[in-house]
């Protein structure tokens, strides 16, 4: 007997969800990007548009013979310092503004100015005032990032449900438990969202500021390659940097987020 293969179509929400959540789909994303890049490089065949293979070779060469790892380390150190300080400062101030209405009103214009201050202007001013120092670069990044974290956290605090405060009062929870069981879990999704957007923003700002004035780092090296029209070198540095960011995203950020907001997952 011949069996006719059945084509199943997603008819129910469950089927659709299964298709949407099919494992492995996101692993195709990067090879697809490389494939498109390779096809474009083959179509243009120009030294100004190197292929992914050429860039990989250059990256390996710069890592083993050049200063790629040293520059990466320098940039990562700057970005990490700026990130940690921005997150701590922004979270504390965001909570304060979210809880104390009068503080929020008093500093709302400051926040607006901070959000709209062009990053490049801050960097130039600080370089003039403090010189081309490590401190000036990190401070410039912090000044650019903190208003964003404050805004995110403030909105998070404002969205806290008063129902849970009532529950805490009914259960006579002491302050420590109230913070751990009621306050922090409501705040964490906003902290994580700030961390994610903050990180991507900080990488970019640090690189721009390194181009503007620095004695090393990815941005500094890219600006040198730019003067030599060395596109392969620029892309090698960029790719290496993106790899580090992706390693952080998949190795640190997502697992933490998965654990912390597990309770938000769809029912099976």
């Amino acid at each position, binding site marked *: 007997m011949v069996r006719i293969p059945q084509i199943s179509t997603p008819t129910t929400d469950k089927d659709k969800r299964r298709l949407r959540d099919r494992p492995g789909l996101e692993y195709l994303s990067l090879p697809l990007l490389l494939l498109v890049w390779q096809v474009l490089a083959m179509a243009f065949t120009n030294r100004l548009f190197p292929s992914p293979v050429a860039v990989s070779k250059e990256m390996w060469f710069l890592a083993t013979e050049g200063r790629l790892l040293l520059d990466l380390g320098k940039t990562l150190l700057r970005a990490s310092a700026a990130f940690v300080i921005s997150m701590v400062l922004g979270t504390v101030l965001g909570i304060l503004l979210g809880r104390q209405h009068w503080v929020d009103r008093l500093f709302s214009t400051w926040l607006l100015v901070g959000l709209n201050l062009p990053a490049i202007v801050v960097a130039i001013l600080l370089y003039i005032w403090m010189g081309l120092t490590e401190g000036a670069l990190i401070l410039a990044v912090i000044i650019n990032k903190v208003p964003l974290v404050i805004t995110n956290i403030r909105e998070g605090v404002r969205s806290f449900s008063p*129902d849970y405060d009532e529950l805490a009062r009914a259960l006579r929870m002491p302050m420590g438990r109230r913070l751990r069981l009621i306050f922090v879990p409501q705040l964490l999704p906003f902290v994580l969202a700030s961390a994610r957007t903050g990180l991507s923003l900080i990488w970019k700002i640090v690189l721009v500021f390194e181009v503007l004035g620095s004695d090393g780092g990815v941005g500094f090296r890219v600006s040198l390659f730019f003067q030599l029209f060395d596109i392969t070198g620029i892309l090698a540095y960029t790719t290496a940097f993106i790899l580090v960011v992706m390693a952080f995203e998949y190795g640190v950020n997502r697992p933490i987020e998965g654990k912390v907001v597990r*309770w938000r997952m769809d029912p099976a």
Partner: protein
Amino acid sequence: MAHGPGLTLNIVEKRFDPLATPVLDQFTLNIAPGSVVALVGPSGVGKSTILRLVAGIDRLFSGRITVDGIDADKAHPPGFVFQDPRLLPWLTAIDNIRAADGKMPQATALQALAQVGLNGYGDAYPHQLSGGMQRRLALARALAINAEVLLLDEPFVSLDRALVNEIHGLLAELVGAKRPTVLFISHLAEDAARLADRVVVLAGRPARIVDDIELPTSRQQRDGNIINGYIRRIESAASTKTGTKL
């Protein structure tokens, strides 16, 4: 047999808006140790406000509420069941129960879960439970702390009758075994007729006690006829004294 404490409410005034009529004014209510009292009355009369004052959720009032002579906010915390389950969505069922008391052993929480028929759901998050199961979990949280005072704010609202009967049975069993003092709100005369020893009917603004009905037959001995008789009596009191139907 040991029983829950007596409650004394002497509320001089409770208002939400300084310019509006107070919700409670010179309001007094004494609740005997180990008794089950139902508060009934039209919506907005102040029933939930009374419960929140007794629980210490709202402390902005003038007057004094005592539990066996001790100020309510210094007494042992009561078990409180809100109108909504009010579970912490980021905690599992077992952790939601343990949130009620930092020192609660895991075994006690598991026992409370089993008591409300949620055996095996300890690791489930609230969103993985049905509405009825969430209600039961909220009840388990209130029961697990072994509170001597239970405050239930419309615990049966929007539940199907089968589940309500189930929870009635559970509460009656608990009240029989541990004799806590229970103050609960219900908009259904049947809930009061099945569970309460006493029904306090409230009306007006500021709220006044317009009727105070004793239900003398013990819960175990209440059959259908007795319950129906109580229902009629409560409904009649509510409609004649408050002008609203329960």
